[in-house]
């Protein structure tokens, strides 16, 4: 491998690692990729918060598609229910992004931190909700 090849590989490695860790945690704990991907992108790849969140969403296109393909034949996917909550969620995501644009990055990180703490408490205290 020449030098540019090496540095290219070094640039890819953190993303591969973040991907594997998020997939591992998703399978083990049923908590999807974003909660892992966003902090790791900020920490390891030094991405600004908004870019980390946007790139996480793009990653979830792939992971949710793969997941659905795996489940599709098994009868576990209820498409009507998925549409009932997924279609209103499209409106929600547009609202969330609009709100995010006006929010200073530090407030965004603060909000995300609180969100992560709530999830952590839920797991530690074994609250099934």
């Amino acid at each position: 491998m020449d030098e540019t090849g090496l540095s290219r590989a070094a640039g890819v490695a953190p993303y591969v690692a973040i991907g594997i860790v998020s997939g591992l945690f998703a399978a083990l704990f049923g908590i999807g990729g974003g909660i892992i991907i966003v902090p790791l992108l900020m920490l390891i790849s030094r991405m600004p918060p908004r870019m980390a969140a946007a790139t996480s969403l793009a990653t979830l296109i792939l992971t949710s598609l793969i997941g659905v393909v795996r489940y599709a034949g098994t009868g576990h996917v209820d498409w009507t229910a998925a549409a009932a909550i997924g279609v209103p969620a499209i409106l929600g995501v547009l609202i969330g992004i609009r709100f995010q644009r006006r929010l200073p990055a530090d407030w965004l990180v603060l909000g995300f931190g609180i969100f992560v703490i709530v999830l952590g408490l839920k797991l530690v205290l074994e609250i099934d909700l």
Partner: protein
Amino acid sequence: MDLELTTLIIGIAAGIGAGVLAGLFGVGGGIVFVPTLALLFSFDQLDAQATSLAAIIPVAIIGAWRQSGEDLVNWRAAAIMGAGAALGVLVGAEIAIRIPDERLSQVFGVVLLLVGGDMVIRATRRLRKQA
């Protein structure tokens, strides 16, 4: 009929709420979708998780598309992470079959508390400095 209307309204509200979290923080919304499906429509865990994945697809597509207009999406990183995640899911599923997950979940919860706490402390410090 009354109950059905209530169910529908709660479902729509939960969907919008999940979407707002997705747009703000870049999570998929499964954290809201799964319990909503389980409690509201009495889905079992596997049905809820599989259906939640289907509901995440349009959210992720529309969200990423909207953010790409501001050039915020690193598509190359996303593709690589997506491929890595596919591998991680396969390995994780093998582990999950062999190890009971109650204790593991609590360990993961502690990790989340540390990560979240670190973010809150850092952000608060920076906000104080600015003030």
